[in-house]
């Protein structure tokens, strides 16, 4: 018998699993053209930026756009300070760029940090800021192909059930897991959105709907062109913490962003924003804790109390196998650690 190794050659496409359904692909060269295309194509189209969220969702059949409007021929403007001192980021900036930019690291260090904690290096090289802010929400029952289990479509896939919360009511409680969003909320960022009706600015705090079926407040013809981070945020003490089981290449159990505006002697807090990501259908605010912090002098014993209260007011959805109670505990610990870290920094600067 002879050997047949000569018949073994490199793998062809056919021998691999190719599960992307067919789609049309447009490559506009201006933002205006993007809007025009979206206007003409209607509901069945989607913007393709880095594709790190969209393509996996198309592979598993969660999304099935007929046309992809790719942003790959648009050039991203470099991040810079505007006349009024705001930091302006192009929505097309990749998360790697954000991680590495000296300007961002100086003016919005917590944002650079959050970007660094997204996925892994290869993902950050492609992932864009705009895509991150508009990513699909996630649910264990959703993020798989439904080839032979969970075949019956849930609300999110235009069906009529919900697996983890079978209480009816057409409510989807998939969790919104962007790491960038909570930080931008604490920084008071605004999104510049271009659509068929022209340009509008929206406070990122109003951008998230809390509706699992449609988590972002974005019209079918709209795209985010840039993100503006106001000057005042640059003077704040900001922190970002992301809790994960293995410390990399994964979405958060909880992510916490904190920004405090401190008075001159760096002890009294005049404004506080605390945003908690990855535990509900949108990033949540710890409003009571913010109120408590505002106008008070920072000290450790208060902080323990404030963090406890923050965990009480935050209402997590159990997700990805983590229970409500555990997520609350994480919220408490990471808010505490963020605030203590701020005190430490301030003490060092003062002392």
């Amino acid at each position, binding site marked *: *018998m002879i*050997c*047949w*190794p000569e*018949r*073994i*050659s*490199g*793998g*062809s496409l*056919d*021998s*691999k*699993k*190719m*599960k992307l359904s067919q789609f049309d692909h447009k490559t506009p060269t201006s933002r205006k053209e993007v809007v025009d295309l979206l206007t003409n194509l209607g509901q069945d189209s989607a913007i393709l930026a880095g594709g790190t969220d969209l393509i996996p969702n198309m592979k598993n059949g969660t999304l099935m756009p007929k046309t992809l409007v790719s942003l790959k021929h648009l050039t991203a403007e470099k991040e810079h300070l505007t006349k009024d001192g705001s930091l302006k980021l192009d929505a097309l900036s990749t998360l790697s760029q954000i991680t590495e930019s000296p300007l961002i690291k100086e003016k919005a260090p917590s944002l650079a940090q959050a970007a660094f904690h997204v996925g892994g290096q290869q993902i950050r090289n492609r992932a864009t800021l705009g895509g991150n802010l508009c990513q699909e929400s996630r649910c*264990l*029952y959703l*993020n*798989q*192909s439904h*080839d*032979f*289990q*969970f*075949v019956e479509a849930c609300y999110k896939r235009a069906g009529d059930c919900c697996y983890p919360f079978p209480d009816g009511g057409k409510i989807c409680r998939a969790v919104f897991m962007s790491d960038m969003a909570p930080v931008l909320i604490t920084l008071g960022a605004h999104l510049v959105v271009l659509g068929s009706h022209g340009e509008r600015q929206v406070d990122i705090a109003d951008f998230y709907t809390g509706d699992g079926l449609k988590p972002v407040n974005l019209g079918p013809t709209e795209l985010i062109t840039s993100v503006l981070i106001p000057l005042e945020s640059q003077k704040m003490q900001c922190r970002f913490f992301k*809790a994960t*089981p*293995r*410390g*990399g*290449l*994964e*979405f958060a159990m909880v992510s916490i962003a904190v920004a405090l505006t401190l008075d001159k002697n760096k002890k009294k807090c005049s404004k506080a924003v605390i945003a908690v990501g990855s535990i509900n259908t949108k990033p949540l605010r710890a409003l009571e804790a913010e109120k408590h912090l505002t106008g008070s002098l920072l000290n450790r014993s208060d902080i323990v109390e404030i963090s406890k209260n923050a965990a009480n007011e935050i209402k997590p959805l159990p997700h*990805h*196998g*983590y*229970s409500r*109670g*555990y997520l609350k*505990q*994480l919220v408490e*610990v990471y808010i505490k650690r963020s605030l203590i870290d701020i005190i430490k920094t301030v003490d060092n600067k003062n002392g």
Partner: protein
Amino acid sequence: MNGLKLVGKSVLRKDGPDKTTGKARYTVDVDLPGMLVCGIKRSPHPHARILRIDTSKAQKLPGVKAVITGIDTKGIKHGFVETPRYLPDQSILAYDVVKHVGEEIAAVAAINHEVLAQALKMIDIEYEILPAVFDVEDAMNPDCQVHIHPNHPRVKENYCNIAGKTQTQWGDIDAGFKEADLIHSDRFESHLRTHGYMEPQTAVADYRGDGTLHMWISSMGHFNKRKKLARTLKMPDASIRIHKAYVGGAFGGKIDLFSHEYCVAALSIKTGRPVKYVASREEIFIAYRHGQPLISEIKTGVKKDGTIVAQQLRMINNAGAYKGSGVVIIFLAWGFTMIPYRVENFKYEGYSIFTNNPTRAPLRGHGAPQVRFAIESHMDIIAEKLQLDPIEFRLKNARVPHEELPNKDNVHNCGLIECIKEAAFKTDYTNRRNLRPKTDRLDDSNPIKQGIGLGVSAYFGGSLIYPNGSSAIVKMTDEGSVDLLTGAIELGQGSETVLCQIVGEELQLEMDDIRIISSDTATTPPDIGAWISGMTYVTGNAVREAAAGVRKKILQVAAEQLNEKTENLKLANKSVWVADNPEKRVTYQDIFQASITRQKGDTIIADGHWRTMRDEPFHPSLASTKGRWTENYAFSVQVAEIAVDTETGEIKLLKATTVHDCGFPINPQLVQGQIDGQVSLALGHAFMEDVMMKKGYTLNPSWLDYRMPLIHNVADSKGVDVITENYQTGHSFRTKEVGEGLVSAILAAIANAIYDATGLRLYSTPFSPEKVLKGLKQLKKNRGLL
């Protein structure tokens, strides 16, 4: 070391250049002209009766070349175990009832994946949903209304869904407990995790006009696969050729016959075209086989001085929908219990229970991690109750060299006592454990608590499983190099390297002088397979015998050529010379020619064969444990140093020390690789890996949501060899095992270290942050701290 040339040295891997340059071919790379792609229609239900299957639409779809269903494969049964007691119970394709999500119902061959996906959707199946049971104790409850299979006919107890039972005892268990000063019981549970092999399950079949079937399979042993394929396809063994391809990891998950392997073969026979199947990662997570959760109930009687006088165990295994290796793990669990410590009075019962979960497979360690986690935690609990030093307690009961085990096996040069002492010494164990005041465990000043823990394990190597032995052939080439023909399969463990080292040692050749032809059922001799931790021992010794045969022939011819006695001859650098007259020499090349001309054309070929326990006909009974098991027990002790964040529940394994007795390390770096690999596997088991299942469905069927450790999670791992076997050139290479035993003690060590750090005793895996935090909270409540 002993003037050895290659063995005992960390020579470069034989498969290294192929793999690092991307030249290595795996089954997924096999691409034949005209090849069709195969897909499998699977059950969406955990338990349902199939009322009707309609494939007519799919069959008519252009591009679909063949469809098979349970009607085509009716009556063909296969199983991980195929014995008179445990008959094969799996169908290739289900035709009446499906018993788990993902069970195979139909297979399609199509010209491409687009057509395939469409065709699979077009297969219309009507089901009657049946009630299902998932929890193992619900399933065995006598009142359980779900009967997945009839109870095993030989087990008469009043339980439901019994797939099998192992029971054994010795001494007098009641008398033993009467003697005890302390009787303590515990119950431990382990969870479901999976192998995480990189190369998916895949197979290619190419049925040729001459009636031969050619296959490439990502497998752990081609001869076992071929046997099962031949039997199920009703073809002679010799008509099936499984070709060599590298295997991208297996860890126990690719042993027995899988439905897709039969299906590609059947579809190739039907269409006359090559057919390929590659499972998606989701299919692997949802429908294929994972490891096995065990419940371990242990009751131990101990004298004040630490002598264990009685031990009673009850193990329960959630086998899934078919027997799989569930009826093996309850046998092995007995073995992993009885090896390390002496217990005069002993009773064991192990139950394997059917549930509507996917069938289970071995997973590196095959029960040992679950069992050792339980027993070593239990040992520490008892030591504390009796105020004994945990090291002394273990030493008191540890097996000693040349001790006979209750099953009449002998531990030979068992290094357990040395290992325990060495591990304690190397890590300053006793001081570091006792110096820490117990009261600081839960005070809140520093939320990070450090702890140290120890565990003991032992593992068998190379016992009897089809084909029960390995053969090898070594043949010389005319320039004096050699070819090694072995059925051994390289799946990353380094078998090709180690086997070449052995040949090189016998014949004093360089690694580059040895060409290895492996794992091809048509051209290489049968091999036991890359499981039961026996390849270096069983195949290694077969290879050594074959090489020794060649060496003998070389010396014989050289003796004639040089007119000298063989005892006076030495060999090196591909030549033989007279010991006291190095000028008088003859090269291997000349010897080869001389052999052909003088020895009736003998081109210098020799074969070698090996099996464990040549006087034992069979593997011991899975039901009664009677019969000998192996002559090869390796022992290990591992120490874990950890840090617990008591606010978040996160634990980090800072350092793992492994002291082991693997016999002679043929390649020390490969041994260290095995240690590091097993420590990181255990780390995943301990902290993050968890196949989340709900009602038979898998919630996290992806690499993103099933978390395996990343490089930064991997602990500093240190290996210490306690080499207890005396190695001499010319004697059998007394290797033991190092590929599976070391996932176990470290898991137990981590559990004991958590207790040391925080006072929290965990009775179940994984040690997830959530569980740790919950436990700590309870502990604080109990102590009035909350």
